[in-house]
């Protein structure tokens, strides 16, 4: 069983590591921590392999990644957690922005996403950036369908406001 679980986790890593990394990166905005949490996600997937009840592996991994990230925010950034904000986390190592060449508009969008409520950001990442279905999103967030839809709508409106505030390049 150990070997089978391990092989599966390795395959899942190849298929979904980027998705998990991006999700965590948007949630905490720190490249090194995003890598660490991605690693934790796959280690937890191995540990909890026997409790996986089938269905979407991607959704299950997102749920683990989200719990790991939220746990971190709850413990390390309780104020940000309480106010449903995205915490400002920075390690001493290279920041994401310096690793990739984002153009002006992409950078504005990235910052705007990080300046809206965490729950808005959460649902926008899953639905609009990672392209998950409403059903998958409900399972990951533990919300019902209407909450996903309403939060997404409000989130997009808030994002638009943020972008206007930042003078989103035309």
């Amino acid at each position, binding site marked *: 069983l150990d070997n089978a679980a391990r092989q599966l986790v390795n395959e899942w890593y190849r298929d979904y590591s980027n998705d998990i990394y991006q999700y965590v990166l948007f949630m905490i905005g720190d490249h090194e921590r995003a*890598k660490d949490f991605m690693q934790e996600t796959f280690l937890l997937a191995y540990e909890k392999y026997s409790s996986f009840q089938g269905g979407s592996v991607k959704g299950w991994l997102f749920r683990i990644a989200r719990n790991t990230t939220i746990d971190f925010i709850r413990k390390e950034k309780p104020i940000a957690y309480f106010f449903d904000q995205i915490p400002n986390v920075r390690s001493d190592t290279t920041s994401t922005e310096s690793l990739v060449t984002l153009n002006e508009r992409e950078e504005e969008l990235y910052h705007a996403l990080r300046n809206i409520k965490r729950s808005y950001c959460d649902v926008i990442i899953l639905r609009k950036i990672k392209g998950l279905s409403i059903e998958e999103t409900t399972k990951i967030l533990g919300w019902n369908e209407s909450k996903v839809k309403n939060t997404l709508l409000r989130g*997009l409106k808030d994002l638009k406001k943020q972008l206007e505030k930042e003078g989103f390049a035309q």
Partner: protein
Amino acid sequence: MKQSEQERIEKEFANLEKKLNLSDDEKQDVLMQINARLDQENKPRTKTSFPFKYYLSIASMAFLLIILIMPVLPLHITDFRLQTKQVEQAFLDFFHEEMQTKYDQEEAPPYFLQHVKEKVVHEDDAIAIFVEHNHIAEQIFIAYFEIEDGNWQWRRTRGAQWDDPNPINWSAMHEPPYIYSGATLDQGLVEVFVGDVKAEIIIVEGEKRFWYAVSPKRDAEVTFIMDNGKEVLVEKFNRFYDLQPLLEQYFQNDEAIAEFTIDHFDYSHTNANGEVIYYLSYSMKPADRENFVLAGGGIEGEDGWFHERGYYVTYTKEGQLHFATSP
């Protein structure tokens, strides 16, 4: 939100997703770390039959000790984790630098680091398994490394490929640690045992798998356990020993050479023509030193022996040996 505006933002979402990716190297490094941590967690625990009455006193002592060292414990744990991470990173940096050098600074060297395990037989060693897409074929290698004077050293390598026509597609290192390894496409293969040691089997891609085991024995038996429960003892076969007499015969025919010995036998693989290529270094003593002219990259030792390094020997289908400096 207006339709066009939303479309524009969604287009930017797609661009962001494309750009905020991990590099292949980083992805590989994290995968190595995950597997290294899983290796640590999976080490078997030994059972002891310790009398229960002693547990209480040991627990009390441990409790007192914890109380005493608690104030400094978090610091030490952090240091240990940091050191472990630094050692892992140092090894990965060393490996990638070596491969980059091998491929002469090519922008994207055609290899993929599949698996790393540290502390294999002692604290300062590691193995790496990597796949290369070179001009011959797709090949998989297992290499053994040790730290010497604080620096990683690449010790030995063995290679295999999945389309090897040889039915006994495995090899072993001939110096300790005796690492046995092989490539397989056979989905019926469930387990491999080298002597009593169960091999680790790694899925490389699709049906391509690779197994390895570290055995205390030099000439251990390799047994394949198939999914029908059948045990297949894979015939003892040793390419090194098969090559030795052929090389002896080769040099016996050369009157200029009085003696020869194989110093180091590295990896072997089978090329597209079904010929086996060996990589080795050897030494020879000339019959007549005064008139002996060495062609190639050898050096003369003080003992009068010439030491050749990094030669490829091809064993052709016709049963002949050919020497070359490249495969």
